[in-house]
């Protein structure tokens, strides 16, 4: 559809673009990225025929750009630029109608039924039909942007060039516009070339991305390849972190704010733990990075308060999440900052230990009940009647963990727990074999993300070894306490 071959050029004095070559296929949503001054707008202006090409060629549908007449070009290529100035108070409809200019030929250039139909259609599509008789000078920035988009669409183009189309638009219209563009590319075969400042929007919607750096192509590839942490960091000279989108397979970039003061080094230790009949509470001095399977605050996130709540053996509630949140609120905790778990175990039987290694330290808290012990390898033989008995494990790491380390922490902790049950000969009542855990166990890994970087937490690493030991000891002690209580 569009082919750019060895194009150089720019404004009179110096060439902004140097030897740019790429191709865009019909129906593609093609994003152009690059820091300020990298030549994005210059490139778009060349494709739209506003700037002269100093060297190289641009082909549209196989024909050289210079061979098109103004009107012919406008029937194929429409442009939505960043700023549109207007000094006179045209109405919205008059403005949109101008988009039909290129399609009106002959001496009298009469306004046909088809023109009217198209204008009405694009106004509806962009949501501006309701104020079509309003003066455009009275509109807000976002409304104006949509009016000019409608004008471009009224040209019925095959290629749409956009210079930061989401500028001035609020969140819902950004999404709506891009959804609409995406839909048109797939359904009507519209080809879209768009400059993006927002890398995440580009990564979310574009089929392919072109990254410009100082007037040259850095890379032209699929979003996942272009939006690599190191590449973006280098081209944009800024601290960013790549992160997967929670719902769709698209890369997302997050900025890392510059921290003025060095992070205050915090320590999680016994002194922060409060135990009463109702709950065990640990309040960290600042939010911790967490990965957990609690009732509240599960998954990954940042949390500051950790609560393990005692519930009766007959606790049964249809919406236990809401009930838990209400409970937390009633006790003065903020549910969004809290990881909350439940247990039927008597909270006095909690076992906790603080371990220190060179460079990092560990604080582990375990409550354990084994009335419901299960051999995981034979769990299919269970009918899962509600029998209380849960092992809740909290592991606080004073150090910085990678994502891998979080997962390995869970593995190591689980293995240590299973071993503790094995050594205490906790038996699965149904199968008669040694149990590996209970049916409702929960785990929390929380790290201060300050201090030494701990890349892995497998049993070969210092961290893994310490976790294994700590969890084993705490779990054993907690189970013994609980069993003793039963005997008495």
């Amino acid at each position, binding site marked *: 559809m569009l082919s750019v071959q060895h194009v150089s050029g720019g404004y009179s004095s110096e060439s902004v673009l140097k030897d740019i070559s790429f191709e865009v296929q019909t129906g593609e949503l093609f994003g152009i990225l690059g820091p300020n001054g990298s030549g994005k707008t210059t490139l778009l202006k060349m494709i739209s025929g506003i700037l002269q090409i100093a060297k190289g060629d641009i082909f549209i549908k196989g024909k050289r750009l210079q061979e098109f007449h103004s009107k*012919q070009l406008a029937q194929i290529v429409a442009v939505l630029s960043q700023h549109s100035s207007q000094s006179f108070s045209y109405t919205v409809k008059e403005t949109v109608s101008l988009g039909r200019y290129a399609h009106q030929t002959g001496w009298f250039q009469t306004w046909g039924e088809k023109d009217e139909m198209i204008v009405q259609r694009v106004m509806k599509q962009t949501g501006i039909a309701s104020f079509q008789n309003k003066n455009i000078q009275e509109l807000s920035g976002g409304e104006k942007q949509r009016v000019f988009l409608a004008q471009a669409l009224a040209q019925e183009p095959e290629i749409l060039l956009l210079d930061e189309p989401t500028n001035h638009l609020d969140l819902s219209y950004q999404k709506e516009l891009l959804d609409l563009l995406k839909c048109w590319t797939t359904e009507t075969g519209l080809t879209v070339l768009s400059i993006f400042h927002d890398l995440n929007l580009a990564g979310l919607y574009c089929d392919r991305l072109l990254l410009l750096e100082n007037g040259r192509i850095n890379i032209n590839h699929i979003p996942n390849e272009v939006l690599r942490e190191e590449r973006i960091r280098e081209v944009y000279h800024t601290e960013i972190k790549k992160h997967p989108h929670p719902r769709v397979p698209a890369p997302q970039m997050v900025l890392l704010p510059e921290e003025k003061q060095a992070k205050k080094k915090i320590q999680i230790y016994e002194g922060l733990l409060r135990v009463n009949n109702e709950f065990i509470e640990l309040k960290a001095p600042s939010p911790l990075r967490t990965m957990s399977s609690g009732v509240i605050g599960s998954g990954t996130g940042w949390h500051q308060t950790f609560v393990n709540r005692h519930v009766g053996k007959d606790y049964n509630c249809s919406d236990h999440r809401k009930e838990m949140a209400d409970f937390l609120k009633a006790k003065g905790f903020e549910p969004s900052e809290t990881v909350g778990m439940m247990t039927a175990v008597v909270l006095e039987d909690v076992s906790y230990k603080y371990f220190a290694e060179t460079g990092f330290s560990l604080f582990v808290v375990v409550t354990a009940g084994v009335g419901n012990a299960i051999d995981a390898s034979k769990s299919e033989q269970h009918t899962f009647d509600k029998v209380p008995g849960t092992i809740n494990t909290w592991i606080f790491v004073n150090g910085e963990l990678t994502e891998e380390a979080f997962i390995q922490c869970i593995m190591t902790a689980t293995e240590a727990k299973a071993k503790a049950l094995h050594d205490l000969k906790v038996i699965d009542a149904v199968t008669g074999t040694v149990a590996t855990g209970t049916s409702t166990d929960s785990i929390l890994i929380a790290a201060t993300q300050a201090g030494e970087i701990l890349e892995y937490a497998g049993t070969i690493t210092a961290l893994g070894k310490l976790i294994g030991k700590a969890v084993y000891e705490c779990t054993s002690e907690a189970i013994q306490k609980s069993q003793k209580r039963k005997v008495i």
Partner: protein
Amino acid sequence: MQRLSIPKFLNNKILAYLIAGSFLLLSILLGISIGTVSVPIFTIIQIMMSKLFGIISLDQIDPMFSSIVLNIRLPRVILAGLVGASLAIAGAAFQGLLRNPLADPYTLGVSSGASVGAVLTLFFQFSIPFIGSFTLPLLSILFSWVTIFLVLAFARKIERSMRVETIILTGIIFSSFLGAIISLMIALTGDELRQIIGWLLGSVSMRGWEYIKIILPFFVLGSVILIFNAKELNAMSFGEERAHHLGVNVQKRKLMILTAGSILTGAAVAVSGTIGFVGLVIPHLSRLLWGPDHRHLLPLSIITGSGFLILADLISRTIISPTELPIGVITALIGAPVFALILLQRKRTERSG
């Protein structure tokens, strides 16, 4: 609220033409009727009828009336109308092209350029062979054409975005400079000062049918070119880049529009001297009443512009009768405050927007 409801009410285009047309007709009748000798409007209609259609013979009418009407007042009214129309449509076109509601042949310095051409011709008695009496308008047109391109080139040099104020300032620089050249020429020729200044301030008196013949072809040519470019003007009032994206051949159309504007201005100045602010007030008023769409703005500016100048001429020759005021005084008295008002309004919208 008030301002919104007025254009809405008048939005009907047929109504717009009716109102403008009635205004023009009224101005013509008043312009012919009022003077040292008052001619009854009914008599004027009779004379017109007999001249145009020959239905009524002229014999029944007082020959003094028909002589006043046909030889003095009518040519004067027509000339005033043509000059007003030329300046108004040229102003409308310049404003649309430059996206600048303050642009008009006078503020851009184009009128001054044309004056230099006219003064040169008049005082040095130039006459190009074969074209004879058209030497005057042709030289005026040539000078106004050169001036507009110099002004725009200079304004672009100052600032690429060509803000409204920059263009006007450039116009003032050129006006002053060209005005000085005219003064210099006048001083050197040592002719009678009053007559020259009268011409410079603009007048449509004592010109006769001769001058109508001079301006008419240029008026028709310029207006037709502009009206055929009305859609392009609409596109270009959104900026040249946008117009290009919409499919307008910007360079070609711009040249056409500027040339047509120079033709209209040059011809008008050649026959009547510099009359300021008509091209500023009339398009602005028309736009306010009937919207900025050039397909209607240009014809409506022609109609209201001619009516306006006929009335201005009527006032100029009756207000301190028997002495005649230069017509430029009247238009400036009305136009300069309007200019100030538009400037104020613009600044206000810029600040609020």
